[in-house]
């Protein structure tokens, strides 16, 4: 089955992973900007990173006929440096009209601090001034519930924001309802230990239905599995769900959400004609 991975950090993966993903049916992916594992020291570090996201990764994905899209921001872990964050936010518009840029992301909170909140609000303002879609990271483990509620409070407090153009990622059982009830899209991240399993993602599809729900791997430099979306597809099949429902979640939904961005120029894969006897 063809699918899109809406959240995967390919800068952290080897080229063999692109080949594996292509073999497993991945036809497109979106890569939000994130934390490199260390705090970058200057605006030039981010400029180089954004060039990698908008120039080299689409090329590397293209070697395997996978279409690569991206989102730009300074992530929450580096937001404690408010001065650098503001420099990055001021520089982002240089890249917003590059091919494949879908919007601002993954912005959000990490430890739910004052500075993270300030930088999050300034990213929201940038997205509204530039008419961009938004992709949001929610915190991990014990911080997730509190941080997700804070994020929703900030989003709902800005009347300029069209909720159908915002994806709130890494939802779990205790946050998904809050996100969907406010009209946002929700992403379930299949990630060992700190996020969600394929089986629990299937549970949430059964409990909330497939509307405005996405599934991603968030494959990155940590222990993670870039082929987690095919794991979800298999879990759905083993649970007895029809192919049409699976396709809606892993293919049609991401296309519907991304199509709201002017940077989403997607070429669907050719579907082979049925052989005539």
């Amino acid at each position, binding site marked *: 089955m063809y699918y899109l991975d809406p959240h995967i950090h390919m800068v952290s993966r080897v080229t063999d992973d692109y080949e594996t993903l292509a073999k497993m049916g991945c036809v497109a992916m979106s890569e939000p900007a994130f934390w490199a594992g260390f705090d970058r020291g200057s605006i030039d570090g981010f400029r180089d990173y954004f060039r990698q996201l908008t120039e080299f990764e689409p090329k590397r994905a293209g070697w395997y006929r996978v279409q690569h899209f991206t989102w730009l921001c300074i992530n929450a872990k580096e937001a404690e440096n408010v001065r650098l964050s503001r420099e990055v936010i001021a520089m982002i518009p240089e890249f917003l009209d590059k091919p494949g840029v879908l919007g601002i992301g993954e912005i959000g909170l990490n430890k*739910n601090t004052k500075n993270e909140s300030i930088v999050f609000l300034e990213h929201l303002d940038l997205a509204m001034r530039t008419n961009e879609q938004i992709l949001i990271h929610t915190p991990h483990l014990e911080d997730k519930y509190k941080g997700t509620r*804070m994020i929703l*409070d900030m989003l709902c*407090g800005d009347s300029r924001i069209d909720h159908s153009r915002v994806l709130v990622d890494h939802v779990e*059982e*205790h946050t998904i309802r809050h996100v969907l009830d406010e009209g946002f899209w929700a992403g379930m991240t299949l990630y060992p230990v700190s996020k969600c399993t394929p089986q629990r993602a299937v549970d949430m599809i059964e409990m909330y239905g497939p509307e405005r729900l996405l599934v991603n791997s968030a494959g990155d430099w940590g222990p993670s599995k870039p082929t987690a979306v095919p794991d979800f597809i298999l879990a759905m099949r083993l649970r007895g769900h029809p192919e049409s429902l699976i396709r809606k979640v892993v293919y049609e939904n991401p296309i519907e959400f991304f199509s709201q961005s002017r940077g989403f120029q997607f070429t669907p894969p050719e579907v082979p004609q049925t052989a005539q006897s």
Partner: protein
Amino acid sequence: MTAPPLSAADMLNREFLEIRAGILALGAALDRIERASGDTADDPRMARIKQALARLGGERPGRAEQVQLIFSLDYDQAWRRTLGVDRG
């Protein structure tokens, strides 16, 4: 809402060994902590673990969501005032 296509009996057949293995892993981990030197009786995480296990044994649905909340920090609706963050 998308109803699970499998019956409850089919689901139990699929899940039984995994549930059994999960409960055994939990029991063994708790024994391991108890056998180790020192004391964790006053560690608030142990209280949360006991609370979560009690919730699993209850009859009400929504166990996963409730266990998530047991392991979560509370949300303060007045967080902006508490942190000193102006309205955006």
